[in-house]
């Protein structure tokens, strides 16, 4: 069958129209979600002040006089996610440099698919392994009262976000033009020196972007932290104390909260806060990548 030029242009137009519509719809979806969360939680923002909701440390949503304060949960969320980055960043960057520069071809060909599979393991499996292995191990060998802790959650989260850090950092290392490597090697510097002084400064911003992307994922992770963080309402005093990150709070209580009550609205407000944190981080990534682009074009 022949396809006439006119048909083709109609088809093309159709495609463009469809793609544009879907892009616009997805854009609206984000706005709609934000508006919905804001609307569902409006009572909280108007009845309790924003500041006392964010800074309060008492969470007693079903008491006679309900008290809603999520400072402890915000702190737990940031601590768990930040802690997981602290563990995963050095490991991830190291692995990325190894894969991009030093690994023999066959080894990299084996490792990359393995990393991809790691990203596909459901988080409940990680949480289960953590609860069955890590928690018991901590209890028996460190003489802790309970093995659940922000640290245990961070450790498991670190394993979950490692593949993201590695693959994103590796691709930003690879995106450094070959001429820089050749120039470096032609000057007779050693390979580690070239990586340290040429590649890392050039790919640094991209690697930072990988880190922030991983942080966004760590913040929103629910299942693993629900099973490992211990879910206590106290403000976390150290990495080894327990806490209840925001996603765990919402997952635990939304099922039983009656719609229309302050409890229900409080959980939506907590979700809204979490969403804003994640959006703020995404904006940060965008700004970084923009800066990176300018940086590279300067060379």
């Amino acid at each position, binding site marked *: *069958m022949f*396809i006439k030029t006119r048909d*083709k242009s109609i*088809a093309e137009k*159709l*495609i463009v129209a*469809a793609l544009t*519509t*879907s892009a616009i*719809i997805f854009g609206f979806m984000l706005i709609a979600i934000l508006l919905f969360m804001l609307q569902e939680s409006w009572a909280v923002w108007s009845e309790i002040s924003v500041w006392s909701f964010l800074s309060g440390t008492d969470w*007693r*949503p*079903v*008491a*006679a006089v309900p008290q809603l304060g999520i400072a402890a949960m915000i702190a737990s969320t940031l601590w768990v996610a930040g802690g997981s980055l602290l563990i995963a960043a050095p490991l991830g960057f190291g692995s990325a440099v190894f894969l991009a520069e030093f690994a023999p071809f066959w080894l990299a060909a084996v490792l990359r698919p393995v990393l991809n599979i790691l990203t596909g393991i459901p988080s409940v499996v990680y949480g289960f392994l953590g609860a069955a292995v890590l*928690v*018991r191990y901590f*209890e028996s060998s460190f003489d802790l*009262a*309970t*093995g*659940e802790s922000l640290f245990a959650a961070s450790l498991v989260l670190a394993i979950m976000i490692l593949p993201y850090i590695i693959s994103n950092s590796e691709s930003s290392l690879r995106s450094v033009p070959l001429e820089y490597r050749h120039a470096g090697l032609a000057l007779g510097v050693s390979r580690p020196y070239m990586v340290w002084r040429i590649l890392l400064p050039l790919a640094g911003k991209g690697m930072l972007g990988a880190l922030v992307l991983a942080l966004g994922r760590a913040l929103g992770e629910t299942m693993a932290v*629900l099973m490992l963080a*211990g*879910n*206590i*309402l*106290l403000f976390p005093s150290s990495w080894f104390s*327990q806490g*209840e990150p925001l996603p765990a709070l919402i997952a*635990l*209580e939304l*099922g*039983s*909260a*009656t719609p229309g009550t302050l*409890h229900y609205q409080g959980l939506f407000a907590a979700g809204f806060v979490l969403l804003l944190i994640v959006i703020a981080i995404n904006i940060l990534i965008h700004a970084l990548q923009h800066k990176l682009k300018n940086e590279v074009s300067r060379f």
Partner: protein
Amino acid sequence: MKVKTWVALLLVAMLGLFMLSGCGGESPKAGDEAQPVEKASIKIGGSSTMAPIVAKVADNFTEEFKTWNKVDKSMPEEEIVIFVSTGGSGFGLKSAIDGTFDLGMVSKDLNDEEKAQFTAGSIVQIGSDVLDIAVNPNNPILNVKPDLTREEVKKVFAGTLKTWKELDASLPDRTIVICVRDLGGGASEVFDKSVMKGTPISPEALQIPSMGALAGKVMDNADAIGYVSSGLVNQNPDKLKALSVDGISPTLENILSGQYKIGRPLLMLSKEKPDTQEQLFMDYLKSEKGLKVVEEMGYIPATK
């Protein structure tokens, strides 16, 4: 080129269909299409204490009859499918009201406001459960002080007594690990009503998302204390030990006579009058065979 264009057109068509289906409101649910006449399955959900009991009964029911016409001659020859899922009493109550589940499982007393939602439907009690104050079998308290007053239990769970030593001088100076159900659990409400009476649970208590996991935590941790369903304690006599409260241990006699007070009913709820399938299953639950499972799992079956 030709192929590419067709693929692209196909994609556009699919996208269009996807959008349209989004506008079309309720899309048919997966389970509904197999049997157009009656709904193909009974969906039950709620209390994590009751889920294992009801799931076992549902298994027996399906095993025994296989198709509905064997349960009752007037029913069509359709396969029996019963889904049982957990999520807590609060979730069971909410889902029974909004219709997510056909039957809700709730293991706590309903207040008048909650009862009012079910005036058109039915509330059936299949048994009762008590909450044992359970500790790990390695806990020396079992030899030193196996009997607590209600006031002591309250102080432990409120966090006033922080270490076992503060509870009794001869006990080790180790932190008491308090294990509780989250707010969605029926047990948390029952415990509040009969022991805490409004005093908030210690903010240091570990909130655990199901009764099974709570029991598991107490089995694993020698310093843990928690309120655990008597059924689970009875199922694991070597791994969980119950303490007496005010001199009354949670034995069957004390529970039946009502002397041991931290108790709760096991309820099945349906928002509307149960349909034939649901009614047949409820009848089976309340029959000798159903109640036998309740008893085997360590709970007190309802009297007929």
